[in-house]
């Protein structure tokens, strides 16, 4: 077990650019809807997620609030914090890092959504809600390893909460709802069965990861790992500057996110791609554009370019290709490139 200080630096992860990008984009813009990482074991999935959370600066949180509400944003607060604000109370706050909350495959539904606080009920004879994993996950990253092995009914509530940003509990004698805005990161090994298309669609982005192929890169992976294990502190120092630079870039992108413009042309392009690829519903187009905007913000651009759109499509579409439950999923990427080239002009 590594202590908190010794987390492997995000910037030290070799390769896996798509995965890193998907995670960064979600941190900049949590409205993207999380990321699904598909691939073999031992491809730094979990390391990357933890490293990213560690990279970011601390957030302002209401002290003692089980949901870690943001004291400056009344619209995303839990009922109790909101009430206090409305009553004119000052909310004490603390600074804490974004956390990675693990959801184990064996988790029971009551632990995920929360349940009746037994102790309180016994002592006081009153019903109180005992928050579950979704409460902890608010404003954090919810990491589900092997999401495809999770019980269906747990996946249902999970994705429902992820989509709404609210967890509603109507069970075991309690009726309660609270904010549950989190970045959902799921991993899976496709050989062990796929997620249902309905659930796939709820993940904003999807990336396929493979072990690094080139010998050179593989050697570099081993080398870094050994150096890190030898002296984690020194290793961290050697990446400090790079890490800080990335953190700055992420924060700046967050601030600029709403200023990035997307021209009519770009919207049209996104819609065209979706029509051409016959994706279900409208979530695909919307996610492509939102991702492109986020990419542009990360790049420090003021406006979305067709290259951003292309990159976004690579992340937002692979798991959304239209298919009946048993047909192969293929992303005809050349098709997208063609559309972008024809319509969007030169790719920058």
């Amino acid at each position, binding site marked *: 077990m590594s202590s908190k200080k010794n987390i492997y630096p995000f910037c030290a992860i070799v390769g896996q650019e798509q995965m890193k990008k998907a995670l960064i984009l979600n941190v900049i813009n949590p409205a993207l809807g999380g990321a699904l990482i598909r691939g073999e074991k031992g491809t730094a999935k979990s390391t990357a997620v933890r490293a990213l959370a560690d990279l970011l600066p601390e957030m302002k949180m209401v002290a003692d609030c089980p949901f870690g509400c943001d004291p400056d944003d009344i619209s995303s607060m839990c009922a109790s914090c909101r009430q206090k604000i409305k009553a004119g109370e000052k909310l004490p706050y603390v600074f804490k890092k974004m956390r990675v909350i693990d959801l184990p495959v064996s988790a029971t539904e009551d632990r995920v959504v929360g349940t009746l606080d037994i102790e309180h009920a016994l*002592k006081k004879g009153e019903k109180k809600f005992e928050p579950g994993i979704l409460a902890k996950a608010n404003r954090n990253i919810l990491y589900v390893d092997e999401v495809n092995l999770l019980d269906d*009914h747990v996946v249902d509530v999970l994705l429902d909460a992820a989509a709404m940003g609210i967890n509603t509990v109507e069970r075991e*004698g309690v009726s309660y709802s609270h904010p549950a805005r989190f970045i959902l990161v799921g991993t899976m090994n496709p050989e062990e069965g796929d997620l*249902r298309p309905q659930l796939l669609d709820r993940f904003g982005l999807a990336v396929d990861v493979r072990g690094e192929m080139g010998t050179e890169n593989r050697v570099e992976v081993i080398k870094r790992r050994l150096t890190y294990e030898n002296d984690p502190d020194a290793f961290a120092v050697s990446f400090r500057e790079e890490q800080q630079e990335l953190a700055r870039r992420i924060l700046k992108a967050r601030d600029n996110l709403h200023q990035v413009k997307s021209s009519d042309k770009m919207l049209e392009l996104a*819609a065209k791609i979706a029509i051409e690829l016959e994706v279900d519903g*409208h979530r695909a187009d919307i996610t492509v554009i939102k991702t492109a905007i986020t990419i542009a913000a990360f790049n420090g651009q003021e406006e979305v370019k067709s290259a951003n759109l292309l990159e976004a499509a690579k992340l937002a579409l692979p798991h959304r290709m239209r298919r009946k439950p048993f047909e192969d999923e293929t992303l005809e990427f050349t098709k997208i490139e063609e559309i972008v080239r024809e319509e969007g002009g030169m790719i920058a």
Partner: protein
Amino acid sequence: MTREYTFPFTAVVGQEKIKRALLLNAVNPRIGGVLISGQKGTAKSTLVRGLAKLLPDMEVVELPLNVTEDRLLGTIDVEKAIASGIKSFEPGLLAEADGNILYVDEVNLLSEHIVNSLLDVAQSGVNIVEREGISHEHRSSFVLVGSMNPEEGMLSPQFLDRFGLFVEVTGEADLDDRKEIIARRLAYERSPDEFIKTYKEQDAEIAAKILGARKFFSQVEITDNIMKMAADLARQAFCQGHRADIVLVETARTMAAFAERTYISLDDLKEAAELALPHRIRQVPPYEIQEQETQETEEKTPPQQMQQPPENEESRERPDLEQTPQDSEQDLPAQQHEGRDHRGQDETAANESLQQPESSEELVEDPGKIFRVITIQTKPFERKMRKGSGKRSRTKTSSRQGRYIRYRLPQGKLKDLAFDATLRAAAMAGRGRNKDGFVRIEKSDYREKVREKRIGNTLLFVVDASGSMGANRRMKATKTAILSLLNDAYQKRDIAGLVVFRKTGAESLLGITRSVELANKKLRELPTGGKTPLPAGLALGYEILKARKVKDPDTVPVLVLVTDGRANVSLNGGDPVEEAKEIGRKIRAEGINTLVIDSEQDFITLGLAKELAEIMEAQYYKLEALQVQEIETAVRSFLQ
């Protein structure tokens, strides 16, 4: 916690049919709600939630999938009982829903136990609670709105019938519309306050229209003629019961009220039929009857209700496997069909050219279009508690993994305490608290959780791929049937494996996997040719399932044998037919569920498949009978 922001109803682009259905229900709750079925990401939930914001006097009460019985129906107020000894009723969601809209997202995934309670109340409009020592009754009359993705499975006919209207949705196909959808979504996310303000006026206009229509409603007359026409329409659509007729009239009347017209027009009735009938068309008339009736109903019935004309190409190839309308309800839009069919042809062409130069011994037949299979129940015979997750066999589970739906008095050693119910029992006993201030709980108060979970089956397909199956495009029909079963398996969360036997032996093409898709892929590529080593196939299937039972004692093993009843290669040098029967006896002794699908179509049948089925105590189906329509047609001709 109330949602801070809701995407405005009027800001949703297109989807006029859903909007219409929702508005009609808002005017006249007697229509009985609406079921919205369609692709993911088509603003289904957005519209329902948007409607709530728009209505001055109706709320949308959401029913989460994981609701427990106590919160749905209501129960004793624990706090009051403990604090003051007063036994009073604490209302549940059904009380909240009274006079409002009750919305169930992904309604097809709702636990059946909850569905039953819900249907009960939806029918009577009254919630009667007789549980946990309290007796209470309250009005609960609500508009039931459900949304679902049909890929995840359909609702039972009784449940379907509870929904007044039915709307099928797809995404907008028009480029400009799609663009507008993206633009509005972006604008909304950028600044919800401003966005909502922009649509305030339009929302208010609609709200005023609803109120106006409600006032006007009583002035709309229902003539005998309209009632007669509604009854005629319902009859021609083969609807069961009278709900369809009534819903038709109520809907048409509401449409007239919406248009502030005092009479119901023929167009109202037509439009109403489009909304009220699709989910109620129960039986498919046999072809001869259907053909005559089509002509009669042509003018009156909107096109949606009529059976799609058989697609020429498909039907020429396999006249025995027609598509049912149930099927088309779940099906993809037309352009998708075309796309797929083209691909199918190309593949077939490619395969043929590949196969032909070589000896024509091996052949890869491409499967036809997937159909809906009949309900196949595996025997709920086990006494043992099982765990697992699936939708075919319902079981009470002893593991703590299932969904807690209700409680009971403990049976045997208490393992899974239902604390909420225990506390309520203690509160009812009125013992108050002990000297330390704790609520007194005694052994007699203990209640335990009843968890429910559907477990999937382990389906092992044992498929004859010998040359005899290649004759007369038999393999095509067989593959189609297996694919359809696999499709069904997917919806029911089964896991599957595939064994084929041909030439000299049997081969496990695919180990037991959750990935039903892989099974599908292997099946598509499966060639036919050679002799028929049936005993070898059965033996391998038996070994695999036996091993599976040891490894995972909680699944229901099912062997699906697809055979034409021929056996001409022996396993141990004996008579192949006798060998097959012997293994069949072993399979039965092991308690493996079996399903025999007989693909024999010769005029004079050998009957071995049937004999084997009897030995294995298997459910036996002719290949063609797997399709829903066949069974229903059989029932119909029996009734006449």
